[in-house]
């Protein structure tokens, strides 16, 4: 080993100095607002409202479970350059986001103005009365999957457009008018979905996780059981066997599950009870260029098909 003792010491001290000189030149590369979205639905919403004024990155895809993401190097690098963080909140990202923020060294998204948590703006369902890990991976703030209700999307969209306008005041008018046009289109789309899905009012279902609670509330769908015994815990075979009795007693119409989880529990129960198991996309295919309206259209297609098939079965 070559001996460079004193040089090393001097080198380490110089390192910091040189870095602090380096940085001002490398940040502020352009004036588009950089948005780091934790989930693809918020990425899609930010893109919808921001258009070419924003550069949006989604930390997860619709095929990923946002509870279980790792604070990977690539995410740290993206968070490092973000101007605004848009996430679900309500502890959904608690396993990785705090660490990501600490590692990224980005003061913009640590300040309150640089953090937008969608769940802060809507009423949460299923706020636990008792916090105990026996109940699984429960969220003290309530169910964080707020994006599954179109009503929530609208409330959050307005708040997000206001936030974008506050951060990037030069383009404030753009964000507000983008919200107005989104509002109009979304209102139309909601009427369409409602017309297609009103038949679901009063329908009973089984879901894998309490992922669709907000959608179900909007549509008047009643949850009779979940495939997970408690949130975040895979069902055991004895628990699933117990669900057969629940099906006999409660007579649900079908089983809903997000398509990123294993289809085995749903298929198992489906085989034994004759209930349809309906995989539904968890979110927008943002990386594939999808939009929120396309996603809800796909949900409506899936649910509508499930209903008509169930009617046919019941009729025949």
């Amino acid at each position: 080993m070559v001996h460079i003792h004193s040089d090393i010491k001097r080198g380490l001290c110089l390192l910091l100095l040189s870095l602090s000189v380096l940085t001002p030149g490398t940040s502020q590369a352009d004036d588009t607002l950089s948005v780091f979205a934790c989930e693809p639905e918020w990425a899609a919403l930010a893109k919808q409202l921001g258009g070419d004024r924003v550069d949006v990155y989604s930390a997860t895809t619709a095929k990923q479970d946002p509870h279980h993401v790792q604070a990977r190097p690539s995410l740290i690098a993206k968070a490092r350059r973000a101007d605004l963080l848009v996430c679900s909140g309500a502890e959904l990202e608690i396993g990785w986001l705090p660490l990501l923020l600490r590692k990224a060294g980005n003061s913009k998204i640590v300040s309150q103005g640089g953090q937008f948590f969608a769940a802060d703006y809507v009423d949460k369902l299923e706020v636990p009365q008792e916090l105990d890990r026996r109940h699984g991976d429960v969220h003290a703030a309530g169910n964080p999957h707020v994006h599954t209700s179109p009503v929530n999307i609208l409330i959050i969209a307005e708040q997000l457009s206001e936030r974008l306008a506050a951060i990037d005041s030069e383009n404030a008018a753009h964000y507000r008018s983008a919200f107005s046009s989104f509002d109009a289109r979304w209102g139309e789309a909601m009427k369409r979905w409602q017309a297609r899905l009103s038949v679901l009012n009063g329908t009973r279902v089984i879901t894998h996780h309490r992922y669709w609670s907000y959608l179900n509330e909007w549509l008047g769908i009643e949850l009779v059981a979940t495939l997970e015994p408690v949130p975040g815990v895979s069902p055991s075979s004895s628990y699933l066997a117990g669900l057969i009795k629940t099906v006999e007693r409660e007579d649900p119409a079908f089983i809903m599950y997000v398509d990123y989880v294993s289809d085995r529990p749903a298929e198992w129960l489906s085989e034994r009870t004759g209930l349809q198991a309906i995989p539904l996309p968890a979110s927008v295919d943002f990386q594939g260029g999808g939009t929120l309206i396309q996603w809800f259209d796909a949900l409506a297609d899936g649910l509508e098909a499930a209903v008509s098939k169930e009617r046919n079965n019941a009729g025949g």
Partner: protein
Amino acid sequence: MKNRSINILKTSTSALLLAGITSAPGAIQAATEAEYEQRLEDLEQRLSNVEQSAPLSSSSTRGLGKQKQVTGNAFNPAISVIIDGVYADYKNDPEDYALSGYALGGEAGLAPQGFSLGHSELVFSSNIDDKFYGRFTLAIVEHEGELEIELEEAFFETLALGHGFTVRGGRFYSGLGYLNQQHEHQWDFYDAPLIYRGLFGNQYLDDGIRASFVAPTDLFFEIGAEAFTGNKYPAGGEHDGLDSLVGFVNLGGDIGASHSWQTGVSYWQADNIAREYGGHAHDHAGEEETPHFEGDSTTVGLNAVYKWAPHGNYRDQNFKLQFEYFKRDDEGNIELEGSDPLEESSLDGSQDGWYLQGIWQFTRGWRVGARYDAVDSDNRGSDTDVLDEAGLLSNGHKPERVSLMTEWVPSEFSRIRLQYNKDDSYQESDEQLFLQYTFSIGAHGAHSF
């Protein structure tokens, strides 16, 4: 009935919106109260349009989320307790353990035969305010019947320096290696790799300061520098300055949605150290002699980690491949404390080693793993007898070890692990079996990549 619930929804939504606006600091500045009134009315109008078109659930639970209790402990830090224990079974006597070519120190020893409590930890962490984060970790261990409380971590870290900079100060694990920064309970095997055991006494932590910088690039690029007092093993001695310096560079990224990687290099320099080995040599009369190194030490490290998870979903299946290499050069004197007359020798030491491990989670809750360890050494000095007594001569034996493990992880908070080692750390080959439990109570700890 339906009209009533619509009204309730409307009122609660208005209240909610108001709460939302008042809690959104960015939005407040621009608008006046009148504007809010207008906006509220607009939104109410829109919502009532929505209501007319949308059926409402009969069992609405809206409003429940509003009841927040404000109590004194709402601002308590995240607290977690790690409960850890092991049942160990050895072919050889664990007291005889040695690593050829390495004098051991720190926490390098083996757990006793039979049942013993491991490394129990008490961790407090929280954002201190909008500028700082802090963490405090106590390790509670029993050494030869004595309960010892060790302050493992006590550091603050900046949150808001910005421009990619973070400064950490206090007591913390050095960033000189991938595994070195992880707590013992996060390791994928019960025991540390041989090279960590041989060079660092399992892990290097010290009191000092770290500055790190993440570059504004798509490729993750982190560079960091640490300055420690140099008081802790494998440095040591009395230091009134910062005599232990570490520099590291890490790179990382993704390949598609399913693959990610990280690689790093590190350099560590500790000058004028007095390293007290914990191992005991015995002279011919049976007197206890403790090897003691004084001089300068440099270590280079190299690490690489690759992870695979289908579509980035780590929950059900994932694979992790991890490699680290370290090489240390020591330049100075070795003496055997307690010898009379004092036995000493010059030391021109060179020790290196690596490990490669792969962990496969084949289904949710079940993981299997394999690890291979190899270390080597070339220690020279003026008196080879002294080096031999200190344990620094390998006498032609190259230590290696093969480990296999399987674990059941019912949740993020519990783990039961079975591990088998074929351990050739010294001439007499040992077989080791560990049955370990690790439970974590309390806050949901975020684990790094």
